[in-house]
């Protein structure tokens, strides 16, 4: 994120699509990797490199970088699991009773680390990878992969657990939080050398009563913090919205969401920790806009109240769902964008008060980021 962004990058079911802000407004300008899935991308504000995970249906995931904002691309190394030692037993998914795969299924998170060129990458089936050279090489973070707690992770919407959120503390970039669906929130204070499962107070409705508050089986769909106040964190969870003011150690459930506490995406105002945005759906088993009327839900008072923002959004027969990586806000907290599984993208330049549709003709949107 950066202030006054003029570019928006969309990772979609059929390629990477760019939009640009000109004097007359936003418009789509270019596509890359046409026809191929782009589940994750990162415009790295530190040096301007644009990274993209490109998932070929037949030939697996590849990792590309562009030094000219998407005009040309070079293939770099893709995170890969090291050979599985023969004496290492499988970690069995307790739900399916199937072994968790030991090879890359999907790149699901990508963030800039502490040092120049340092990157973190989260994947299905639950691997965290670390690069110190802009993706020229990757190392599996074995401290997390080998943690016994991983045996409790399970798939949510996907068959296998996955790391979808990586937060790098702006005050101390060796402190990391990751969120796992389904495996809760994990903290490292030593740049990934060791990990602790945190998250007291998060509640799961989908497990037996004695496990409801187990932090290791939670399904945080997405967590977000304010870069100015990273001890304040919002979580859009599978069955609710949770709020932490102590860096993720303790959470309070928010029960007054309006119109719904279900959804995937959450974004926080970069400077104002009282303000956050969500894109609600009806509920777990009904993943469409509430009452066929699409809205973005905003709180500006730390969750005391929520307001549905509807101006410019379709208010009848709208069946859009917005995935967890498909809502972003610029560094000034004014410009927001979100994209749906049915191929629409909306942009607001007034904090969500009103929206303009960039396009209704896109492929399903998997991720979206300002650059």
């Amino acid at each position, binding site marked *: 994120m950066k202030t006054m962004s003029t570019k928006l990058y969309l990772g979609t079911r059929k390629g990477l699509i760019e939009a640009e802000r000109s004097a007359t407004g936003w418009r789509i300008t270019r596509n890359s990797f046409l026809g191929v899935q782009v589940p994750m991308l990162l415009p790295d504000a530190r040096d301007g490199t644009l990274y993209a995970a490109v998932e070929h249906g*037949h*030939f697996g995931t590849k990792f590309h970088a562009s030094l000219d904002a998407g005009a040309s691309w070079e293939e770099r190394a893709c995170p*890969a699991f090291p050979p599985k030692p023969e004496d290492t037993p499988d970690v069995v998914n307790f739900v399916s009773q199937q072994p968790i795969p030991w090879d890359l299924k999907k790149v699901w998170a990508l963030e800039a680390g502490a040092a120049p060129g340092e990157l973190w990458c989260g994947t299905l089936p639950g691997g965290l990878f670390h690069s110190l050279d802009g993706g020229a090489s990757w190392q599996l973070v074995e401290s997390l992969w080998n943690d016994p707690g991983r045996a409790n992770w399970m798939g949510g919407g996907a068959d296998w657990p996955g790391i979808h959120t990586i937060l790098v503390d702006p005050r101390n970039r060796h402190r990391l939080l990751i969120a796992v669906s389904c495996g809760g929130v994990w903290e490292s204070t030593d740049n990934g050398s060791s990990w602790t499962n945190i998250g007291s107070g998060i509640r799961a409705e989908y497990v037996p009563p004695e496990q409801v508050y187990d932090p290791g089986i939670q399904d945080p769909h997405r967590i977000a913090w304010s870069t100015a106040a990273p001890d304040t964190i919002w979580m859009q969870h599978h069955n609710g919205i949770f709020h932490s003011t102590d860096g993720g150690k303790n959470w309070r459930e928010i029960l007054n969401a309006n119109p719904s506490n279900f959804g995937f995406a959450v974004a926080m105002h970069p400077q104002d920790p009282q303000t956050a945005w969500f894109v609600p759906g009806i509920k777990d088993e009904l993943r469409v806009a509430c009452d066929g009327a699409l809205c973005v839900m905003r709180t500006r008072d730390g969750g005391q109240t929520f307001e549905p923002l509807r101006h410019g959004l379709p208010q009848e027969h709208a069946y859009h769902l917005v995935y967890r990586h498909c809502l972003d806000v610029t560094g000034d907290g004014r410009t927001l964008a979100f994209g749906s599984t049915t191929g629409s993208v909306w942009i607001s330049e007034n904090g969500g008060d009103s929206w303009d549709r960039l396009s209704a003709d896109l492929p399903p949107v998997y991720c979206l980021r300002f650059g």
Partner: protein
Amino acid sequence: MPTVQFTANLASQTAAPVCQVAGATVREALNAVFTQHPTLRSYVLDDQGAIRQHVVVFVDGTAITDRQKQADAVRPDSEIFVMQALSGG
């Protein structure tokens, strides 16, 4: 020496020319190709060295059976085709 050919759809993603390479098994022949074209490896094999789920390898018209280790034998005049399985949407 066996000949190794790749689907044109793969050639559109990365260099995948027809190769004549030494090898008594599919694995040996593929490894010889990957030595010449290292980027090609991850398009055909997964992290653990198995044939990718949606890739099929034929030797003289018959799909190989050992997708994990590719121990299927090849003759000096064999033709190995690396194809994509029909899938997707």
